[in-house]
């Protein structure tokens, strides 16, 4: 199929292709997929050395290494912030010593899929803030865009370098019971977690030093260098650009990461008050030697708080005039303001279409099948099958507002049903997935716990994908909640070349074939 064919394809055809089968199996009856062990309890090829090593260690030695890792984390001050009684408290980062292993062959496919996806998403964002051909060509309904909470009219007509808006993306991947890897969501605003990915590796290297010595586990620590060169490439025309990381401050839950990245890149970590915009539209930071011009800002502050002159007027952490400076091309901002428009759970449902539209290719990584309540037939199906589905509001993240049908009360289901009927554009629904598990050390025993995976994708002149990603694990038995603030932990993630003879063939079912 050529690009031209794809661009004229109408909505009806798109829908029929992407509509999930009404009889999609529910998760609960199927055996779970374990990332290290196959259905017979035998190690998967890439995990062979690790499983053998852990079995050789025995439980008490493994526990000793877990305890040492916990001490390392405490001593290294690897923390995240939780909020309690209105105060932020930094807690030691929860880490499980048993790593998750991904076959390098499978990873290459995932990497291609993510690169493909992010290229399409960036072209989409650039399009919606400029010509909106995607709407004109009938690929994305105008009402989806009009109803997007993260569409920023203030960004219309902007042209960031390379046409890239989402420079840093953390996409959440999950594997279902049949082994298929799905993209669950794309975090395009201020995704966090990459520092923990890097720190987990340090801790895990100490715990399994012998394995690292004898096995080719792909390194992860070049990420900050890649990020730095990406940021430098965005600078307006200056020889030695000054780069800064913009943080909301110490009490932000990801402050550790902001500080980590600034240190690792050797750039300033600034708060809103450290910056101001001069009458010449240049952004300046207040240093001990006086104002100094800033050329690139890696912002870890949500759009809404970036600039009180344009967005939330009561924002205390923003920089008045920052948008003016950005629009004037005096400063580059990563991710670009407005990039979140593609980070919307309704837009998500169209991403496979966007990949076809902008790239003329079939998606390598599948979406989780998604019902769009915007359409009468899909909405009817959702309302008739609420009990079997997971219902999500479009404009929330971090699991807020999500309703899991099988765990909701009748009253909750009735309420969400009314909400869907009131504002169909705000809602999507997906079948409940049976997230894969990884053996995890819990209360002195090794048991499977559900995981997801957040790789990070850098986009600029070229693309970069972290080798593996941050594996988050729900430490409570049966739980699917992987957030560290809600009992979630993390694991190191090893991308390992499987022994040649037995290379696994577990790549994502729908995306295993090469792009057309």
């Amino acid at each position, binding site marked *: 199929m050529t690009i031209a064919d794809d661009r004229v394809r109408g909505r009806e055809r798109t829908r029929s292709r992407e509509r999930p089968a009404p009889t999609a199996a529910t998760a609960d009856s199927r055996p779970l997929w374990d990332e290290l062990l196959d259905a017979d309890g035998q190690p998967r090829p890439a995990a062979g050395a690790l499983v053998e090593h852990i079995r050789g260690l025995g439980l008490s030695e493994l526990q000793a290494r877990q305890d040492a890792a916990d001490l390392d984390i405490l001593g290294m001050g690897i923390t995240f912030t939780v909020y309690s009684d209105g*105060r932020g408290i*930094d807690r030691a980062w929860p880490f499980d010593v048993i790593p998750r292993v991904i076959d390098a062959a499978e990873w290459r496919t995932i990497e291609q899929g993510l690169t493909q996806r992010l290229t399409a998403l960036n072209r989409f964002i650039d399009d919606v803030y400029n010509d909106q051909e995607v709407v004109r060509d009938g690929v994305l309904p105008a009402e989806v865009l009009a109803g997007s909470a993260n569409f920023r009219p203030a960004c219309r007509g902007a042209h960031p370098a390379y046409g890239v808006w989402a420079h840093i993306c953390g996409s959440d991947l999950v594997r279902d019971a049949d082994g298929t890897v799905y993209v669950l969501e794309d975090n395009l605003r201020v995704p966090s977690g990459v520092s923990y990915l890097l720190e987990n590796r340090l801790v895990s290297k100490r715990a399994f030093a012998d394995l690292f010595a004898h096995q080719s586990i792909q390194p992860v620590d070049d990420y900050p260098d890649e990020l730095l060169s990406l940021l430098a490439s965005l600078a307006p025309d200056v020889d030695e650009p000054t780069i800064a990381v913009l943080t909301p401050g110490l009490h932000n839950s990801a402050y550790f990461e902001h500080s980590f990245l600034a240190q690792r890149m050797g750039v300033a970590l600034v708060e809103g008050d450290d910056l101001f915009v001069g009458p010449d539209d240049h952004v300046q930071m*207040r240093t001990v030697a006086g104002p100094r011009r800033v050329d690139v800002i890696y912002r870890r502050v949500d759009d809404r708080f970036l600039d009180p002159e344009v967005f939330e007027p009561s924002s205390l952490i923003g920089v008045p005039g920052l948008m003016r400076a950005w629009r004037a091309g005096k400063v580059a901002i990563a991710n670009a303001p407005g990039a979140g428009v593609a980070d919307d759970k309704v837009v998500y449902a169209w991403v496979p279409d966007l990949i076809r539209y902008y790239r003329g290719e079939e998606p390598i990584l599948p979406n989780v099948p998604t019902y769009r309540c915007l359409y009468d037939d899909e909405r009817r199906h959702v309302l008739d099958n609420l009990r079997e589905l997971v219902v999500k509001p479009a404009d929330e993240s971090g699991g807020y507002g999500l309703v899991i049908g099988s765990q909701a009360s009748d009253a909750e289901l009735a309420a969400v049903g009314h909400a869907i009927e009131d504002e169909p554009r705000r809602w999507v629904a997906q079948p409940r997935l049976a997230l894969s598990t990884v053996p995890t050390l819990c209360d002195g025993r090794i048991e499977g716990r559900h995981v997801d995976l957040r790789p990070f994708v850098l986009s600029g002149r070229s693309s970069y994908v972290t080798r593996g990603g941050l594996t988050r694990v729900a430490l409570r038995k049966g739980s699917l909640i992987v957030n560290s603030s809600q009992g979630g932990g993390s694991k190191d993630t090893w991308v390992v070349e499987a022994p040649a003879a037995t290379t696994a063939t577990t790549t994502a079912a729908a995306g295993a074939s090469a792009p057309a």
Partner: protein
Amino acid sequence: MLLARVAEQLYWAGRYVERAEVTARVVNEHTHLLVDLPTSVPLTWEPLLAVPGLREEFDAAYPAPDEPHVVNFLLADRDNPVSVLTTVMTARTNLRTAREVLPREAWQAINDLYLYVTSHHTDGVGRHSRGRFLGRVIGEIQRFAGIVAGTMCRDDAYHFLALGRHVERADMVGRVLDVRAVALLDGPQLATVEGATRDDGADVPIVHDEVQWAAVLRTLSGLEAYYRRGLAPVSGHATVDFLLCDPDFPGSIRYCLDEVLTVLAGLPHAEAGRTAAHATHRTLDRLVTAPLDGLHAGLAGLQVAVAALHEQIEASYFPPPPPPPLSGPVPPGDAARTEIEMAGRSE
């Protein structure tokens, strides 16, 4: 190019780390003194409250200035802004917001200190475990200082940490001398230990001066340096001279002021700071040449000069942030310090 905000955090972290160390040493040496002095010499803990100058705060919270209470106040009291516990917590909070400019090991050292102090601070109160606790605290601070000295580039970040340490040390040496030396020097008519009386009601004269002067030197880590200068035996006059103006001992006030001047020479916009440091130097010179019975007044003057130096540094480098656009707390004059202390408490 160091952010003004980060410079302020580093400066205060330098001050707090130094304050924690001197406070730990003051308590440690006073405890040793108990062992060194014959039991006939009564030793009270009350004078130590004058080092931080928080007598009123202490009286409001504690029933009596006895050993357990004074030591608890100085080491383990979360409500005392200058206890070892609070200063370590605050220093760590400050460095958390400056972590991106610190060597990783330096951060780990301060974090280790924080973890140790927050989990063991009550060990410092009981006499049997106090030495071990304070030894570890002092050792961890020295480890931090060693990593900073050995691995940090001599850039602005280092300069502000060093500035904080030396301003604080100059201040603390003056405070310790004021409390310990003035009581020892004030002649026979006042040669009593504050608050101590014999059974018959008469004042108890201070004896074993040399033991007490040696304790002053040890508190400020200067006993061996004092010997090396050929000043033995330990005497009051020589000790005061040594701690005020020895040009080569890193714990003398003169040395600290020289260091402040050296650091300022490497910083931009340092003219006003240098003027204030020179003025402090002149105050010190007058103090050195003045008769010893004027030591107390002279030290008070010196403290005022050090405070003026601090204010000048603050004015030159730490401008208050712009007022928030709408409502919100408008920083009062000493807001920086208050905020930092509050932030330290909020852990």
